[in-house]
């Protein structure tokens, strides 16, 4: 019997697999396809204080083994997420990680304080790394001092453990990770998308209305893996790793690099059943590799 469970602050996961924020809405679409209780956790779409309409279309563009998106944090706002999306998710036996976004520190604090009161929200993921909004988002995630102070402010009001979602669009991701550790973060989720763009060769115009977008998908996995490896080596925070995960061996890689759990993002768009498929294959793959538990695999690349 392979032990699939993982314990990290706020989260007793039955397995280490969860859909990544922004790739799973608030779960309703995927609930038509399978029982969400199979999932280790769910990272719901970023929530802001007010309703956000997001960016104009086109919002997505395909690239080599990846895609760009500039959705722009479209969400129904705190009141609706708290009042209807989260209660709807209570029918499933699955912990929710609520992604919190905003344009000012006060926004983050307000969403964090309120949303962390929901009974099924077991942890927060603070989105200081959205590349697609003009204010807030990534501006909190590129300066270590700013990231530390925001972490402190959110930590003070949250009723559940706080994970900070890091951006790869920085010179030194370890300095940001250390700063949020100092600020009292309970964990890190990484990585958000890499800034990129695509042009139309006929017209020379950007394909995405927002001009640039966030790159995700298999193309970014090596970047994500290297960053998880560095941050896990140089901080003591548990990491939920993500970036280009499409199959069970990608999960093995992220765990080996030091992630305690793994989120699946863009792959949900290609194969909506990817999360339950990985979950069902993981025990056998661990057995083949000679491991009895997920925990044993975490960070093994540092021990070899």
């Amino acid at each position, binding site marked *: 019997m392979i032990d699939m469970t993982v314990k990290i602050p706020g989260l007793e996961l039955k397995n280490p697999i969860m859909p990544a924020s*922004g*790739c*799973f*809405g608030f779960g*309703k*679409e*995927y609930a*038509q*396809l399978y029982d969400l209780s199979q999932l280790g956790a769910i990272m719901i*779409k970023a929530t802001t204080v007010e*309703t956000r*309409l*997001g960016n104009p*279309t*086109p*919002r*997505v*563009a*395909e*690239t*080599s*083994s*990846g*895609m760009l*998106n500039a*959705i722009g944090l*479209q969400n*129904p706002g705190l009141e609706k997420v708290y009042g209807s999306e989260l209660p709807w998710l209570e029918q499933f036996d699955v912990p929710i990680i609520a992604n919190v976004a905003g344009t000012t520190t006060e926004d983050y604090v307000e969403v964090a304080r309120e949303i962390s009161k929901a009974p099924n929200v077991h942890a927060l993921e603070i989105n200081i790394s959205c590349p697609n909004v003009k204010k807030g988002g990534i501006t909190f995630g590129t300066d270590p001092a700013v990231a530390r102070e925001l972490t402190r402010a959110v930590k003070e009001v949250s009723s559940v453990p706080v994970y900070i979602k890091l951006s790869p669009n920085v010179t030194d991701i370890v300095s940001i990770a250390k700063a949020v550790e100092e600020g009292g973060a309970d964990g890190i989720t990484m990585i958000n998308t890499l800034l990129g763009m695509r042009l139309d060769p006929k017209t020379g115009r950007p394909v995405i209305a927002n001009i640039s977008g966030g790159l995700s*998908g*298999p193309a970014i996995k090596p970047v994500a893996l290297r960053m998880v490896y560095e941050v896990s080596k140089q901080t003591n925070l548990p990491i939920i790793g993500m970036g280009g995960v*499409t199959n069970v061996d990608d999960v093995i890689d992220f765990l080996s690099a030091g992630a305690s759990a793994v989120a699946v993002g*863009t792959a*949900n*768009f*290609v*194969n*909506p*059943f990817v999360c339950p498929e990985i979950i069902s294959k993981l025990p056998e793959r661990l057995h083949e590799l000679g491991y009895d538990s997920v925990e044993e695999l975490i960070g093994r690349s540092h021990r070899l």
Partner: protein
Amino acid sequence: MIKQERMKVITQQSIAKHIFELTVEGGLVDEMAEPGQFVHVRVADSFEPLLRRPISVASIDKENKRFTMIYRAEGRGTQILADKKAGDEIDVLGPLGHGFPVEQAEKKAFLIGGGIGVPPLYELAKQLNSRGIETVHILGFESKQAIFYEEKFKALGDTHIATVDGSHGTEGFVTHILNELPHDFDTYFSCGPTAMLEAVQWAYPQKKGFLSYEQRMGCGIGACFACVCRTTKSETDYIKVCSDGPVFPAGVVIS
């Protein structure tokens, strides 16, 4: 219910310039109901190209568990799809979205299509005819080489063709034909370029109409928020073409 299935290719053929007709077989067909729904096709087992391709359903054959797609092979993904041969398998997710409400038509319906928006109107015409509704088809294409299914539509009702270059039928757009026809129908259904849908709505402000929209998609099931449109129904929300649509009543979508 939405299913994901590796479906078997039965036939694939080129039926007009860059236009392919692909028939596949599998249990997913049991789930198909409304004309105007679409499927999301993964053209390769690798992640290159990454995303699925939304393709409309041109006809459904429940008895043989087969359905036919008609698509234009112009991009990277659809060109790969065009290489599939009988016996190959393709990964299909569907049926997706909400199609045309056939029960809304009373006696006579206009079916107005442009280019690659024409295919879903064929299954619609079949279903309307089987309900005893008279259908008139007004179809626009780029040129004579791009026309497909003219005879098949003719077998189901009056069919008028427009080509932009005038190489077949009326020269110009479907609106040129609409101007000439009596407004003796109760309901119209339309699928095609956004500009055409706009023109059709303007042409028949008093009539009951249903329009199928197109928008760049990610997931195809409503989770990624890529294919949104503004709507007259709410200033604070969008509608999603993939899951709320692709068919909407006239006057709902702000394009």
